[in-house]
């Protein structure tokens, strides 16, 4: 039980941390010090709430979010969020492949584009030949290297009182457009729509039942909170090492300096490992989620634990998605792509969250485990927040560049 919980927590950390979280947090710390920590905390509360619900839906009804939305609201309703999420997910996979390529570029000095085809092939092979447990637990376990960002602030002279003040919302004196753009990007990097269906699909793959409801809650709270701690660690180290010197994060290379201060010559290796492994975990999760969502939507066979010949259309979806994503990243700067993908996450979040509210109140699916009034109010608040963030995300992206 403890091992299962630990693996779940590690997996949740892996789901939380990716190229977007690293880029948005590093930018936030470099430009606004600790002022955006409250956004990470707010996003974490939202994502804890939503992942717990999607896990509960899967454990009680043995339905994933995509599966239940199609069944409950009809294919016509399901088709639009599915289409937008697929486009969005391809961009996210492209950003993650870009992140891995940059990590290898940092480690070797070669042009990152050289690594893109190899990474795409390795990612595809991992999904084609691996099973769910290997992908989730293996890659996520390696992702523990990101704990360097939690330890790092204790090794430098961190002003903890100022860090704590970052939990209270405050506005900067200037560059407010940039501030809100980063706030939206952080929310987008935390509240990733794919996470809900992926988490539920994982629960169905692992055959969760109502007996796992306690563990589901613990995994959602502990895993996402640890993920948030890592994001806050990145913000703190970026503020300390980049912000004071006037260094922005114009490229991932500059973000390496966040770990050089606490870890010296190990900083580069730790950063490259953190970025590469976090992005590999996220790329495999998002690619799989595309296959899950399409297969569940069309009623095809689906499971990462089946051989590709047993669910050929499921395997075809991630194969095509990875190829498309690799093409995108060959032509677009990975950091810019990451920031656009994070803003788009925020745009489509309401489309994915709203149906969850309907499902979580349906006794046909949840039996006696439906949402209580407090949970419903909280989800409505999250939907309202997601709508506001979604409305302003693209205009801010254009204004803030």
């Amino acid at each position, binding site marked *: 039980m403890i091992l299962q919980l630990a693996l779940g927590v590690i997996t949740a950390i892996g789901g939380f941390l990716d190229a977007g979280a690293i880029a948005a947090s590093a930018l936030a710390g470099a430009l606004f010090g600790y002022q955006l920590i409250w956004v990470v905390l707010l996003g974490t509360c939202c994502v804890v709430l939503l992942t717990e619900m999607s896990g509960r839906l899967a454990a009680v009804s043995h339905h994933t979010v995509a599966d239940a939305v199609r069944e409950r609201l009809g294919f016509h309703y399901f088709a639009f969020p599915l289409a937008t999420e697929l486009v969005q997910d391809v961009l996210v996979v492209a950003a993650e492949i870009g992140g891995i390529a940059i990590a290898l570029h940092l480690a070797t000095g070669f042009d990152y584009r050289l690594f893109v085809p190899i990474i795409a092939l390795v990612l595809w092979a991992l999904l084609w030949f691996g099973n769910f447990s290997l992908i989730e637990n293996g890659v996520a376990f390696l992702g523990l290297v990101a704990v360097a960002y939690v330890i790092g602030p204790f090794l430098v002279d961190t002003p903890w009182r100022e860090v704590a003040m970052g939990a209270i919302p405050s506005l900067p004196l200037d560059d407010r457009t940039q501030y809100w753009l980063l706030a939206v990007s952080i929310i987008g990097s935390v509240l990733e729509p794919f996470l809900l269906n992926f988490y539920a699909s994982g629960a169905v793959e692992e055959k969760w039942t109502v007996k796992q409801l306690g563990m589901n809650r613990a995994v959602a709270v502990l895993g996402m909170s640890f993920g948030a701690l890592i994001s806050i660690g990145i913000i703190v180290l970026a503020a300390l090492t980049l912000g*004071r*010197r*006037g260094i922005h994060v114009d490229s991932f290379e500059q973000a390496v300096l966040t770990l050089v201060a606490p870890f010296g010559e190990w900083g580069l290796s730790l950063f490259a490992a953190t970025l590469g492994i976090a992005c590999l975990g996220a790329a495999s999760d998002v690619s799989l989620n595309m296959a899950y969502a399409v297969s569940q939507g069309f009623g095809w066979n689906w499971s990462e634990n089946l051989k590709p010949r047993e669910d050929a259309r499921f395997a075809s979806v991630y194969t095509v998605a990875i190829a498309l994503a690799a093409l995108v990243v060959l032509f677009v700067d990975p950091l810019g792509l990451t920031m656009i993908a994070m803003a788009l996450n925020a745009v489509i979040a309401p489309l994915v969250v709203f149906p969850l509210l309907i499902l979580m109140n349906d006794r046909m699916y949840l039996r006696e485990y439906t949402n209580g009034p407090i949970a419903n109010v909280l989800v409505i608040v999250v939907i309202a927040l997601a709508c506001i963030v979604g409305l302003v995300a693209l205009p801010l992206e*254009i204004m803030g*560049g």
Partner: protein
Amino acid sequence: MRRVVLLSWIAVVCAVAGCGPASKTAHDAREASRSWAATVTTVTEQWAQSRVSQRFTRTMLDAASTDLHRQLDSVRTLDPELAGSIARLTRAIEPVLAAVERNEPAVAREGASGLMRLVDPAPSEEPRDAAPDAGGPRR
């Protein structure tokens, strides 16, 4: 929040209509050149202290040169004065990169020490502390 939404949509209309991106391009280029000057100064200092490898220092300086050339192209006709400042910075990074390639940390550090003055003579914008663990929020 309605104001933010309204302003955001006005900005979309302006952006679509092609209003006012020129000043933003110049602003972004100025900010990027300051950031890269600070980056090169910092990473060269870190290399001189053996805290980062020679290869990483070269990678970072290459990235700085590449991005500064891009920034230079974006403002060449828009703001010749700024373009001149970025061109001077780009030229000043070349001997630093050459010193890194020759494995001469002291020469590289000396070459990088004057970069901030090229992009912004105001002392408030210079790095406040060269110590590796110094810092805090800028705003």
